[in-house]
């Protein structure tokens, strides 16, 4: 039995596509997919990645629509695959470069989440940085936002967003409490290819929210995230560094501070980009939301951009974790757009 909320979302998406096609709107349907193979502990295995369906449509003079749905492997699903609606955004351009956004968004908390979404062909490395695997950054929120971009000589941009946030019962169709997640982000693009910014996130995560490896949290958590990033993707050099400082406060263990970040660098030789990435994550003991761990990773890889729709990557990753131990693995991936 398909849940009602998922049925409604699919119906909404189908309606928008049908209506826009019927009226000859400028609707574009694109997709992204990836296939990978991993060698670890003397075992080689193949994996099918997410298939990303991406739809945009110009609905009228000032309205536009963006939808992103992902089909991915889900062990618990009877068909072993599941559909996840990642973004549904209705945008109203009310003035110049200023927009009102409603729907489900990728939170604009850092460069990676705001730029790459689920399009693996755009990823500079095969996998997302470790801070995403540990869910330090809340990837999505459903709500309403104001956005501005390319303002002035420094091409200033801003995002202000209010959403349902995280919590047991907070999801794409409802919020379990009166507390809303708030996001504020600003950035500048001083030169072509460069973007630097900071962001702030606040939410109250209610008890009962299942997260991490330790099961549902038992206490309400007041969460604040402070993030900063600097990115430069030029003709030759590529550089991306991001960090997040999380402050989780609760009545029993007080305030615990988590640090997460990574640095990526690459050098382009025509269509080939050798690259390196170092990740760092430190979650203190007593932290209730994130899993207590100190983790470092080193990724060394090479990326071949055959064309803008076809990218092949080969990576070696070494990780050291207090929680999961050390690991080494090699991954090859082909990511495509269509």
């Amino acid at each position, binding site marked *: 039995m398909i849940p009602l909320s998922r049925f409604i979302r699919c119906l909404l998406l189908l309606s928008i596509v049908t209506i826009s096609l019927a009226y000859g709107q400028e609707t*574009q349907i694109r997709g992204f997919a990836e296939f990978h193979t991993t060698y670890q502990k003397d075992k080689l295995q193949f994996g099918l990645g997410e298939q990303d369906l991406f739809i945009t449509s110009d609905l009228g003079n*000032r309205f536009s629509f963006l939808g992103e749905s992902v089909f991915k492997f889900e062990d618990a699903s009877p068909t072993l695959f599941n559909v996840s609606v990642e973004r549904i955004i209705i945008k109203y*351009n009310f003035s110049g*470069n200023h927009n009102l956004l409603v729907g489900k968004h990728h939170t604009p908390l850092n460069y990676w989440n705001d730029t790459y979404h689920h399009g693996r062909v755009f990823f500079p490395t095969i996998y997302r940085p470790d801070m995403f695997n540990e869910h330090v950054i809340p990837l999505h929120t459903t709500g309403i936002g104001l956005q501005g971009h*390319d303002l002035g000589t420094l091409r200033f941009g801003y995002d202000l967003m209010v959403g349902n946030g995280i919590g047991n019962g907070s999801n794409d169709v409802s919020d379990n409490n009166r507390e809303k997640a708030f996001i504020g982000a600003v950035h500048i693009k001083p030169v072509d290819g460069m973007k630097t910014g900071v962001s702030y996130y606040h939410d109250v995560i209610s008890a009962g929210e299942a997260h991490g490896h330790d099961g549902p949290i038992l206490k309400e958590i007041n969460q604040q995230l402070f993030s900063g990033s600097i990115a430069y993707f030029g003709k030759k050099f590529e550089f991306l560094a991001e960090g997040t400082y999380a402050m989780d406060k609760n009545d029993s263990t007080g305030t615990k501070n988590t640090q997460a970040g990574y640095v990526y660098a690459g050098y382009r030789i025509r269509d080939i980009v050798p690259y390196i990435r170092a990740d760092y994550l430190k979650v203190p003991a007593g932290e209730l939301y994130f899993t207590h761990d100190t983790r470092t990773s080193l990724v060394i890889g090479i990326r071949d951009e055959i*064309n803008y729709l076809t990218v092949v990557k080969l990576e070696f990753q070494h990780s050291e974790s207090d929680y999961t131990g050390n690991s080494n693995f090699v991954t090859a991936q082909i990511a495509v757009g269509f």
Partner: protein
Amino acid sequence: MRGTPAMKSISKTLLLTLFMYSIAMVTRAQETGEKIMLIANPKGAPAEMKMSDVKSVFRGEKQRWADGTQISIAMMKTSTPIGEVISHKIYNMNGNELNKFWLALVFQGKAKAPVFFNTREELETYIKITPGSIGVVEEDGSRTLTPLVIDGKKAL
């Protein structure tokens, strides 16, 4: 001395090098010799613009003209010879880089994709009927639409 194997080999090498260099120079002349001009629908774009503003428009950094009309960009496909020239002159990118640039921008939800055309006639028809549209075509002397003046020039 004349006609020795070594001299013949050196001569052949020099001739081949000169030939390759000439081809490169002719090709380069063709690439930089191509002139382009900007055309626009009468509603929206100003008659004169700075090159910095043109680049801002064509990078999707500007969504509306001063009168509030939505900007719509029309370009020749990068697979056409003039499309490749436009990529270099306006964006300082090759065709593949340009396609990636726009796909990424649209994917991020930051801008509306340009409309790409196979022929100049199709592009000019689009410009004529679409308020707010601006496009780039080869400057070949024909004047179906009045070109915009960019930094004091009608051709780039």
